[in-house]
């Protein structure tokens, strides 16, 4: 990363008459766009920039230099599993035999692509202990929504229309209640115990025949394994509900534990977390959804199935399905990367992912718990939460610590989530980081804790060495300027 701010906008580099493309000559100039009825055409060309190719290349290259990625440095962003994105995955997803396929091409001409899709479906089912997967959902939140649609379809298929509620722990990711609401469910919140796990006694009275199911992530957002999971699943099942597994925290389970074996009926997986596909600055992701035997028919259309008889793959739709949540078969480019990852690791390395990610998290926790407040003792899984600095006399907040970390060349952990702790600082190192990297981070975190006591102003005014300093969020929200046109008008 370059700490000198670039900051220009492409519109500011534009000059009338420049262009950055080349197109074939029109051999059929007798057919003229100008023959279209004028009242159906736009009055003026869109106000897009006019720039030459090198200007475009330099502009976005300079812009990228003000960005921090996993390839730049340690990115312990809790709950996001910022693991290494292997380069071979990128090479495979750009394979020329796949990128030029139209999604509605005749199935006989896309058998290789369908085989990749089918093999990944199978691999995820095996890793999850579930029966079948769809790879159509585009992201984690989209997977949640799809999974909840499966849940609702299941109840409605039995004529059970009174199940309108979904139980969600207070520690859950914000998308869980939002997905439930979009799916037309009411949300019932179940409390956590002081050790961060779901309070089974609080859960019992919530269970009746209006409950469609329960959404959980395990380990939960505090990185704690829900050790009562078997009992919880049994209680929910006895009440007629289904168990939904939010796969955001699947990474520590790789090789050790399968959601299907824990009693979950439906789940999504974030391929951009557990299966190493790049986060791309916020997307594209992929959120495959898996179900237990007996729920397969509700998965979204279209589906890819292997036809044993003809030894080929088919794209099918069925009437019992919940419907469609995507135009085609999801983010195929992301699916290609995840399949390359699974092939590359193989079963012998996949089983090491969970333990090493968990080892890294516990090591950081143990090395820092004398300077940062550890609200929940004991072994964590792939991530854990500190509740701010141990020394509460300094007025230095979690936000300040996060910003100071940027000065030292680290991405900050997730902050102020989960909501259970006021100064939450959620750290997830992933399995790819070496002991030396972790030791470097630990050293810096200890330095910041010392600075908080000795020179608190230095921390409270951080960052100092980044391309830009702290931003005025309030100005942006009170006076939203969201396009270049508005920006120009604003400057006048």
């Amino acid at each position, binding site marked *: 990363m370059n700490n000198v701010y670039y900051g220009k906008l492409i519109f500011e580099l534009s000059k009338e008459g*420049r262009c950055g493309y080349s197109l074939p000559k029109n051999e059929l100039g007798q057919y003229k766009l100008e023959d279209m009825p004028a009242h159906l055409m736009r009055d003026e060309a869109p106000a897009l*920039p006019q720039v030459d190719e090198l200007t475009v290349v330099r502009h976005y290259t300079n812009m990228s230099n003000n960005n921090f*990625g996993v390839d730049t440095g340690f990115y312990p962003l809790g709950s996001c599993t910022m693991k290494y994105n292997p380069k071979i995955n990128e090479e495979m997803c750009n394979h020329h035999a796949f990128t030029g396929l139209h999604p509605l091409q005749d199935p006989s001409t896309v058998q290789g692509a369908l085989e990749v899709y089918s093999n990944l479906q199978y691999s995820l089912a095996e890793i999850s202990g579930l029966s079948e997967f769809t790879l159509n959902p585009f992201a984690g939140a989209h997977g949640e929504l799809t999974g909840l649609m499966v849940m609702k379809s299941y109840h409605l298929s039995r004529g059970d229309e009174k199940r309108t509620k979904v139980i969600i722990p207070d520690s859950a990711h914000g998308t869980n209640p939002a997905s439930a*609401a979009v799916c037309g469910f009411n*949300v019932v919140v179940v409390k956590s115990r002081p050790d961060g796990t779901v309070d089974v006694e609080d859960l019992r009275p919530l269970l009746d025949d209006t409950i469609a199911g329960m959404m959980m992530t395990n380990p939960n957002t505090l990185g704690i394994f829900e050790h009562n999971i078997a009992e919880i699943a049994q209680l929910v099942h006895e009440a007629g509900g289904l168990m939904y597994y939010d796969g955001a925290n699947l990474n520590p389970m790789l090789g050790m534990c399968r959601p299907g074996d824990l009693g979950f009926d439906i789940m999504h997986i974030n391929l951009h977390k557990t299966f190493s596909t790049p986060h791309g600055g916020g*997307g594209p992701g992929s959120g495959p959804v898996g179900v237990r035997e007996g729920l397969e028919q509700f998965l979204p259309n279209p589906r890819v199935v292997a036809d044993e008889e003809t030894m080929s793959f088919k794209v099918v739709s069925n009437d019992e399905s919940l419907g469609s949540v995507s135009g085609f078969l999801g983010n195929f480019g992301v699916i290609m990367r995840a399949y*390359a990852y699974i092939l590359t690791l193989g079963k012998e*390395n996949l089983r090491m992912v969970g333990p*090493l990610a968990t080892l890294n998290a516990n090591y950081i926790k143990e090395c820092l718990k004398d300077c940062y407040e550890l609200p929940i003792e004991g072994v964590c899984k792939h991530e854990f939460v500190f509740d701010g600095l141990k020394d509460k006399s300094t007025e230095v907040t979690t936000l300040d610590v996060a910003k100071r970390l*940027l000065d030292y060349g680290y991405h900050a952990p997730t902050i102020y989530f989960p909501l259970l702790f006021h100064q939450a600082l959620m750290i997830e190192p992933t399995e790819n980081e070496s002991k030396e990297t972790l030791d470097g981070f630990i050293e810096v975190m200890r330095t910041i804790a010392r600075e908080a006591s000795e020179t608190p102003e230095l921390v409270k005014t951080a960052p100092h060495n980044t391309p830009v300093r702290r931003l005025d969020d309030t100005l942006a929200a009170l006076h939203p300027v969201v396009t270049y046109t508005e920006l120009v008008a604003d400057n006048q």
Partner: protein
Amino acid sequence: MNYKYFPHTDEDIKSMLDKCGLKSLADLYEDIPGELVLHRDYELPEEMSEVEVRKMFDELGEYNQTLNCFIGAGVYNHYSPSVINAILSRSEFLTSYTPYQAEISQGTLQYIFEYQSMMAALTGMEVSNASMYDGTTATAEAMMMAVANAKKRNKVLISDTMNPIVTRVVETYAKFHGIVVEHIAAVDGVTSREDFENKVSQGDVAGVIVAAPNFYGIVEDYTGWADTCHDNKALFIMNCNASALGVIKTPGEWGADVAVGDGQSLGIPMNFGGPYVGYLCTSKKLIRKMPGRIVGATKDMDGKRTFVLTLQAREQHIRREKATSNICSNQSLMALYVTIYMALMGKQGLKEVNALSYSNAHYLADELCKLDDFELAYPGKPFLHEFAVKYKGENINELLDTMLDAGIQFGLKIDDHTLLLCATETLSKDDIDDAVCICEGFQNIDK
């Protein structure tokens, strides 16, 4: 242990476990009841070297056929400048996440701001969000936005000239969200104005969704539609082909409240269906009802112009079950894709792409209609790069198979006598002549 993605030596593991007061990696899972632990290997293949992985994908690729593409139906084979992939592969963009730490994410924030600006310019709308998954889900989000905006209404109208793939997703979201979707009939390939006016005037409609160009490639005339919607307190929502917006009348000019669609036509490779990018633009008045992330301009402590995620009070992580959308990210890298595309193509390039596609499609239509077996399904209706033809022969499947044998995907079969055909600038006159020649030859067989 010795594996390229795991830096841990045996010694590292031992000293780290020591620090944690543990003896083995298994101890890290001592809190999990034994019967829940997986005590076997996954039934999956063993580790593959890069040599083997490459070979595997090469072999799988042999079962695919990249065809000469006369099919569109929502996904278009446009020219994709080589600059774009080169920039997208920069790991500073590729391996970052949502720009939560704005001080080290100005790259992402800046290109999203550019994306929003360009999409607003392209659609003629005032504001754009930071992008969505794809065009189908963006349209479903626009529907939910209309219903949330109307408060007490839960009905939405959708034109029968909408791409049925979009309609299917919209109807799925509607079913679960408790929204009633009614169709507006299509007459002669265009939306029935009469049916629209009858249905929207019932007083219970939150939004009306139409397409431009529509599924059959026709550019419909929506003069007065926005006014009729507004008179009846419904939002007017237009799903538009992004590339075509470079030349056709914009949602902004038609008076639409929301413009949505897929950005794939802005140079994104077809990639067997994804990743693409959905766009959603609206008026400043409705910005707080808009789903998805938004980037805004602001200043840093030193007064520098900077960019930041803003208006987050609308979003799921704040509103949780009160949110009207569960979107928690954007399709960032693909937003960057179309941003660079629009930067390169600029004002003139999009027009040229449309002009070339127009020429190719109209030449194809003319040449086909010279044959006895073909005629336009909707003669006289204006189209750009896509159109429906009637096929009067008996064996359309054989025709399509003959085309496949020649390496051509000859459109989308709508029914046994209708094909939806498309020609973009990536086809040459020779490509078109070859396809027409096959049709001509086939004509004599298919009697």
